[in-house]
């Protein structure tokens, strides 16, 4: 499946939760499948921290498919024969949607840190504009990790439109420990001498800081068992230590590699803004309590967690389910046994396919 990223510009001022606003927001998006006549077969996929609009298929000439290609396509979990599947890059991102690396139309230079701090609500508000533009009437929302947060926000903000919500390896609020890891990542970027207050677009970039942030991130995406299985204590390309501070262990080499490739594809400022939005997300705080938040929502919920995920632990998913059940909402919950940590949501696609297919089919 050859696909291409399209762009939509919102020709109005979008008010943000912070009280600031943004004009002429551009949204990068991709669609797969066809919208039916009733415009009620749409599924919006919501990407995680560093994802983009390219969820499935291949771009012309590319050999790597989209980030959720295992799950999206003909006869897959999100079956493009049946559904009109949409994915857009989030506000604040750096993959085609307006973010800190975009040119501020008022100044003619990149926003940098003058870009307003955004929240998950703001991200969803922008997505809604795209969904309206595409003519969708009824919507299923689905996302993993931060994408799950957006899915929940959709259910809260657009009660009439959203009929199904799929929340995978996600939470209604980030744990203290996870905020702490995000803080380390942000500090690494902010302390990089090349950061220069976020105005680095025409000079050396804060690659070291961003790569350290990514290394920390990757530790949190795995778990003890996953790391053990993947690397054990093996040395990288050798059997004896080097007695210096270079890379000895395979796990060091893995992290260094992940850090390096990340700086080529991601913007440090976006990393700051997006992790902040994730940290701020707290449904109970915003709506008084988790129970009262979901009171009038009309959707049907599917919540999936992974046994070894300590970044978005099953206990938090259960808390969410509890609040939904207290509101007598239609909710199904599955904790998938997996040794892969948080990363499992992108890896364990076989069980997820069965679950999601069935959930989408059910009345």
């Amino acid at each position, binding site marked *: 499946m050859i696909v291409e990223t399209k762009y939509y510009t919102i020709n109005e001022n979008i008010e943000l939760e912070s009280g600031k606003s943004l004009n002429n927001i551009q949204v990068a998006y991709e669609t797969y499948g066809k919208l039916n006549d009733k415009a009620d077969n749409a599924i919006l996929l919501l990407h995680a921290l560093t994802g983009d609009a390219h969820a499935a298929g291949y771009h012309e000439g590319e050999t790597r498919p989209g980030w959720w290609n295992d799950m999206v396509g003909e006869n897959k979990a999100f079956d493009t024969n049946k559904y009109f599947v949409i994915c857009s890059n989030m506000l604040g991102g750096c993959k085609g949607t307006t973010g800190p690396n975009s040119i501020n139309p008022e100044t003619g230079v990149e926003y940098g840190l003058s870009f307003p701090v955004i929240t998950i609500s703001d991200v969803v508000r922008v997505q809604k504009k795209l969904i309206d533009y595409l003519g969708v009437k009824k919507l299923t929302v689905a996302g993993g990790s931060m994408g799950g947060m957006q899915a929940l926000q959709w259910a809260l903000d657009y009660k009439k439109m959203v009929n199904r919500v799929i929340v995978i390896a996600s939470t209604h609020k980030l744990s203290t420990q996870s905020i702490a890891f995000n803080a380390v990542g942000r500090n690494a970027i902010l302390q990089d001498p090349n950061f220069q207050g976020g105005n680095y677009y025409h000079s050396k970039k804060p690659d070291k800081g961003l790569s350290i942030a990514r290394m920390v991130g990757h530790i949190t995406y795995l778990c003890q068992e996953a790391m053990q299985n993947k690397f054990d204590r093996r040395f990288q390309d050798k059997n004896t230590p080097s007695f210096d501070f270079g890379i000895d262990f395979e796990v060091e080499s893995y992290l260094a590699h992940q850090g390096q490739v990340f700086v080529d594809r991601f913007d440090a400022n976006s990393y700051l803004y997006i992790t902040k939005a994730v940290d701020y997300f707290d449904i109970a705080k915003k709506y008084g309590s988790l129970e009262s938040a979901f009171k009038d929502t009309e959707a049907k919920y599917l919540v999936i967690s992974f046994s070894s995920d300590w970044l978005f632990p099953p206990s938090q998913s259960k808390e969410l389910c509890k609040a939904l059940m207290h509101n007598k909402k239609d*909710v*199904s*919950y*599955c904790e998938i046994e997996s040794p892969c940590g948080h990363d499992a949501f992108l890896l364990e696609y076989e*069980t997820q396919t*069965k679950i999601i297919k*069935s959930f989408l089919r059910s009345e």
Partner: protein
Amino acid sequence: MGCGDGTLLKMLKDKGVKARGIDIDQKNIVKCLEKGLSVVQGDIDEGLSDYPNQSYDYVILNQTVQSTQNPDYVIKEMLRVGRKIVVSFPNFAFYKVRFYLLFKGKMPKSKILPFEWFNTPNIHLLTIKDFFQFAKDNNFTIEKKICMNKAKVKKGFLYKIFDNFFCEEVIFLCSN
């Protein structure tokens, strides 16, 4: 509760019942979802704290009470959440079970008790008499008792008078 692959739940749903299942096993959750059922993965031994008081008309514990860790707690939780509860289990005082133990001197095995002593999930087997005593001790009402033999409902005189001897399985409808 302990809805397994959702067979019963599906039958209820097809009759128009708004129902939800709980099971501990991920494979069963997937099977239930494939049947289009609402199901939540959880351990009923941990109670039903996710459910408000009297939030269901019926809570069903089908052939599961004997394999819970804390049957007394589980049943109390069911009575808290449901207006009525249904509990069914294999009767360990069934005459064939008694004779098996008496004459063979081994832990009874049958079609509905197929396990070996070392791998059975049935760690809290009980009899009809036990359940009546339990209801009395815990102040709940038994509204109805249905005797089953070879998966069929039995209504004869013997089953009424000597239920604890002739019933292979039993279903109780109870309320607070």
